[in-house]
């Protein structure tokens, strides 16, 4: 079965420190993976997708098929990065399978 696991419900780091939010997946085909973010009092929005191989707001994520991981990284955390982060896998034509989410808090 297709599944996305985010092992950390909460993650707290200091401003300027590196950040890594973990995501592991199980999927029998070629996965399409995404990171979504929800800032306080805002709606869920796409942060980045693996096929774009782009950096958004300083965040990057590399798909590692051997380890079935898609960890989200940023070298220097900023206070505005505090938010809820969801890793998601596209299953079938369109629907998304989400992980439980990680609440990231950046301490000043």
């Amino acid at each position, binding site marked *: 079965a297709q599944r996305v696991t985010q092992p950390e419900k909460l993650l707290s780091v200091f401003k300027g420190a590196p950040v890594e939010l973990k995501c592991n997946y199980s999927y029998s085909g070629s996965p399409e993976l995404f990171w979504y973010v929800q800032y306080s009092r805002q709606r*869920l929005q796409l942060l980045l997708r693996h096929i774009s191989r782009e950096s958004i707001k300083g965040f990057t994520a590399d798909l590692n098929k051997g380890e079935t991981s898609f960890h989200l990284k940023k070298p220097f955390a900023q206070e505005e990065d505090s938010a809820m982060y969801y890793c998601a896998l596209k299953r079938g034509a*369109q629907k998304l399978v*989400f992980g*439980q989410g990680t609440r990231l808090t950046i301490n000043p």
Partner: protein
Amino acid sequence: GAGVSQTPSNKVTEKGKYVELRCDPISGHTALYWYRQSLGQGPEFLIYFQGTGAADDSGLPNDRFFAVRPEGSVSTLKIQRTERGDSAVYLCASSSTRGDEQYFGPGTRLTVT
């Protein structure tokens, strides 16, 4: 332009009652999705529409849940005989035919007492 909108933003109902939740997608988006997010969990897929038809309703938990999109735009999620376990945030998203990014609405928080 306007994003996905959902009404109401909050709905409190008694166990056993019927509720309707509405979603207005981004204009021109042919694909529409419903997800349910329980407390402390990520969104869970319920149903996906391509145009007027439900292309995938495999996520609907049981026959108390039903959704329609009669004109290929606005969609209504209908829940009959609500149960306390139906309490959650119901999210709607839409996407264009060519792009695959799903744009989410603010959600409807349903509380069944």
